[in-house]
């Protein structure tokens, strides 16, 4: 080969290499994140997305979408269709019309009290819309829509302990190609104590309802914040139940435009409402409801026993030795 030609070839190779490197940097899945507040809770976003699309912009877009939804839900007279559907499916165990009741008990407020029966009855009569028991889940559905529109590769959205996972972590990145590992906090422990870990792939939503978060004690009785619409008092159908964690999932979807199959509720709103419904219904009465929504669940009891529903034992590894699997 003549030296001149060789030099040209070398230069060509260098240009191709540089171009490839630039392309790689632009299209490489970058990891970006952000924290903020939405729906009265802390919002943490972790995104795996190609640099050219700009993760920061997407996290801002998600925060804006959640804010818009919050305003919409807070001013609405009635909840959106999926919430109504879940109220019907759960026989009213999930009830988005307990706003006046929650205000009456004022459990997460300054001066909680045990109201008189007449007051409770009147509050139930008011049927005041309260998005508290489904809003965070619905917000995660909204975040998911933004993620899909922007073709994010993977994401973990944590809205006040409600966790949405999406996609698959890109191979060439930290923890690439591996499933999502989501820890579940010990409902009876401190913020750093974990009960175990979920190993999940694809679009999943984890939601927990528990009596340990917000409560007050009067005359030796613990009054928690999840009300039974049948009585207007804190639910106690399944004695000793501390919390219920529900895992819902969306079926695989090829494109951002493809919508969920008819009759399938989005994982977020479904999971959020189901965790409340299951906490009210208790283990035995929840199983059919969970199965009909393809959901898994963990029922955690005061005595440290955990009853799994569905595939829960397959996706959850118990790591806390003060708990044990109960029957089933």
């Amino acid at each position, binding site marked *: 080969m003549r030296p001149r030609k060789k030099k040209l070839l070398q230069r060509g190779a260098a240009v191709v290499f540089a171009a490839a490197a630039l392309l790689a940097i632009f299209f490489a899945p970058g990891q970006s994140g952000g924290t903020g507040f939405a729906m009265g809770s802390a919002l943490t976003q972790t995104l795996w997305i190609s640099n050219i699309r700009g993760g920061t912009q997407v996290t801002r877009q998600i925060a804006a979408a959640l804010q818009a939804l919050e305003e919409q839900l807070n001013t609405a007279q009635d909840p959106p269709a999926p919430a109504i559907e879940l109220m019907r499916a759960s026989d009213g165990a999930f009830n988005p019309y307990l706003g006046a009741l929650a205000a009456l008990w004022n459990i997460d407020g300054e001066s909680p009290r045990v109201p008189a029966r007449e007051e409770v009855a009147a509050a139930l009569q008011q049927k005041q819309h309260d998005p508290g028991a489904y809003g965070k889940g619905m917000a995660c559905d909204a975040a998911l829509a933004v993620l899909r529109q922007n073709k994010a590769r993977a994401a973990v959205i944590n809205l006040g302990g409600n966790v949405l996972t999406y996609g698959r972590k890109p191979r060439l990145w930290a923890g690439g190609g591996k499933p999502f*590992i989501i820890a579940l906090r010990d409902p009876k422990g401190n913020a750093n104590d974990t009960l175990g870990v979920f190993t999940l792939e694809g679009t999943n939503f984890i939601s927990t309802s528990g009596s340990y978060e917000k409560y007050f004690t009067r005359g030796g009785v613990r009054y928690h914040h999840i009300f039974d619409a049948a009585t207007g008092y804190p639910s106690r159908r399944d004695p000793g139940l501390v919390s219920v964690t529900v895992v819902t999932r969306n079926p695989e979807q090829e494109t951002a435009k493809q919508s969920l199959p008819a009759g399938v509720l989005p994982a977020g709103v479904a999971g959020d409402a189901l965790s409340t419904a299951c906490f009210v219904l208790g283990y035995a009465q929840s199983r059919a409801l969970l199965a009909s929504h393809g959901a898994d669940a963990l029922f955690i009891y005061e005595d440290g026993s955990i009853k799994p529903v569905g595939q829960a034992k397959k996706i959850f590894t118990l790591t806390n030795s003060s708990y044990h699997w109960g029957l089933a």
Partner: protein
Amino acid sequence: MKKGDAVVLAAVLLLAGALWLAKLLPAGPPQVVINGVPAAQSTTTNGVAVAVNGQRARVVSSPCRDKRCVRAGWLKAPGDTAVCLPQKVIVEIRVAKKDIQFDGTAY
């Protein structure tokens, strides 16, 4: 080979070496794990008595017939394992991964 080539080659080798080393480094203190659950103190699982002494452990007694698990003696180094198949107990010394990287915490 030109000087530039040598520099690039050296840089690549260094990077590869560093990545490899980072993987090899132990990420945390060794831990006694019984049936997948970390154990900080002596305990009995499925009738198998396990003595835990800090980061070491041994099977003290077992109702099983062959007593292989007892004969395994003290488990000291990461990877050491005592298995009792009849009683379905596995005792092992594991190195905890660097504060297991969670993608998030649900509550």
